């Protein structure tokens, strides 16, 4: 009765493996989801892909880092007051997100507005936003260089670095920061859902998404709401970047741009016009990647794009999107 089994039974091992893969999927997927939330806002309301989102994501991470760590950061300036790092981090996170929102508005002004007023092809907007992304990322590189930056280990205070669950001798783990990212995505989702469905601003946004010309005729200041959208998208993007930065470190100015490409798969899978779709898309792709067997781990990147291709052929409106009537 006291003797422990040397090797756990096969069923427990399989169940544990399954559970670990699930947790990994949520872990990986929540990163995609939090990136996609800001991304899909612009896609949903304006029907255009804002490639500069990856750059704003990166910018947010750098801003939060520089404001919280280092001599001129909050921690540094107020060093005498012995403020715990968590406080200066939270404040920097907020400020960083706000500044990123402002950056989002700037992107709109520079890359999208001139094209919109001309009624230009949305593809031009895509390239234009890519140009802005390149400029932003390279300015960061010029100013700060391409070194790695890591947030201090105690960024989340006294929380343990990972949560561990034990099952019959085996262990299932998930890093705390990933749990935080998941929770924050859910929170943002809930707040956005409330905003879009239960407030007047949300109603106006939905009207603009439906048909900007009609909305303007109804007295909605379309330009102003587009501005709100970009500010919100930038805010979310900057915050997402900072959080993901605490998880993986900031690996150089291009670290956010890579998400931009996979993010496409996420938002298209989730569906045009659907904010929950972004989260669902992110989690689905994350889970699929987590279940790829170790021998084929290099095929992980192809999973998202295989899904994208399949969805485009079979159900272009994505999992949760509305079917698009082909406007003649």
């Amino acid at each position, binding site marked *: 009765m006291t003797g422990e089994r040397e090797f756990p039974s096969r069923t427990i091992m399989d169940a544990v493996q399954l559970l670990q893969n699930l947790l990994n999927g949520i872990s990986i997927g929540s990163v995609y989801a939090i990136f996609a939330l800001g991304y899909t806002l612009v896609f949903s309301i304006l029907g255009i892909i804002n490639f500069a989102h990856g750059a704003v994501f990166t910018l947010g991470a750098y801003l939060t880092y520089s404001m919280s760590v280092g001599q001129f950061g909050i921690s540094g300036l107020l060093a005498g007051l012995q403020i715990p790092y968590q406080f200066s981090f939270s404040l920097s996170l907020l400020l960083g997100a706000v500044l990123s929102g402002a950056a989002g508005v700037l992107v709109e002004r520079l890359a999208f507005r001139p094209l919109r007023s001309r009624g230009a092809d949305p593809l031009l907007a895509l390239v*234009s936003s890519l140009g802005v992304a*390149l400029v932003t990322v390279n300015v960061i590189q010029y100013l700060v260089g391409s070194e790695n930056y890591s947030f201090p280990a105690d960024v989340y205070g006294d929380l343990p670095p990972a949560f561990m669950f034990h099952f019959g001798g085996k262990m299932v783990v998930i890093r705390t920061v990933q749990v935080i990212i998941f929770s924050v995505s859910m929170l943002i989702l809930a707040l956005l859902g409330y905003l879009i469905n239960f407030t007047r601003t949300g109603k106006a946004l939905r009207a603009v998404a439906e048909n900007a010309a009609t909305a303007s005729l109804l007295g909605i200041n379309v330009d102003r709401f587009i501005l709100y959208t970009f500010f919100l998208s930038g805010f979310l993007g900057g915050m997402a970047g900072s959080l993901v930065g605490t998880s993986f470190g900031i690996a150089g100015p291009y670290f956010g741009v890579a998400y931009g490409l996979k993010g496409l798969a996420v938002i298209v899978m989730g569906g045009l016009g659907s904010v929950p779709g972004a989260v669902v898309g992110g989690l689905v792709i994350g889970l699929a990647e987590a279940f790829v067997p170790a021998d084929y781990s*290099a095929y992980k990147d192809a999973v998202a794009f295989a899904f994208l291709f399949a969805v485009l052929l079979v159900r272009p409106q994505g999992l949760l999107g509305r079917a698009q009537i082909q406007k003649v």
Partner: protein
Amino acid sequence: MEEFLQNYGFLLVTLVQQSLLALSLYFPLTAGQLSLAAPGFYSLGGYIAAIMATADYFAPWRDALGWAIFPLEWLIAAIASALLAFLVGIPALRLRGIYLALATIAFVEILRVLCLNLDITGGAVGIFGIPQLFESRWGYIWTFGPLLAATLFFGYRLDRSRVGRAFKAIREDELAAGAMGIDATRYKVLAFVIGAVLAGIVGAMSAPFLNTWNARQGTFDASISYLAYVLIGGGRSLWGPVLGAVLLASLPELLRPLKDARLIINGVLLVIATVYLPQGIVGALHRLKQIALSRGAAARGGDGRHP
């Protein structure tokens, strides 16, 4: 002259190569299809050439054919690209606009990951030491140059042919073209295949030129570069992509003294060009010419309404 070629030969050949890749994006565009799939076929062509030039399996072929193996590589790359383009194009070309672009992006990424993993492609490390066709980099002008000339000639004839007119009709209004009896899908796939075959041949020629081939040749970044060439040069005529490629591909070299700032300037130019030059440079020049002509007509008397 010798000095100049030694220093700039590589750049000049690269400009021709990039023009060809821009044209491979242009052909589907003449039928109104924005396909970002060129890097996928470029990568495929390059791998075919690299494998045929280095793998043991092909050693007897190399011994038997000598330098003729190079044209054979191009031929096989062209055929493979055409087949793959048919396979991918037929389902994908039912999509429109940005969705088609996304499908082609997905295709390129999937192909890239496949190449990253298969043993035959050298896995993630790639294929090295591809035998050279010419001693110097400048020598390759004798492969890319004629190809560019042939492509421009082909494009010119295509434009004036029935097929070219069908492309134009589809680009202007696909539904109307269908109503007039043009089988839109067939022509769209044809345009896609033409672009793919061109990209594949360029890839096969580029493998010895670049000496080394790996999955990094076929990425999304490359798609965006080619798209920029066409957008900035102008997507409505054959010369647009060539001009765009020559300008943008030489920019990093011209801006070399600026070192770090050059990528910033590259991005800024991209934004300015898309915002202020919607028809590209060629289109803008065309418009200037029209303005000049109409002013000329006005100056010669007449208010434009009466001949």
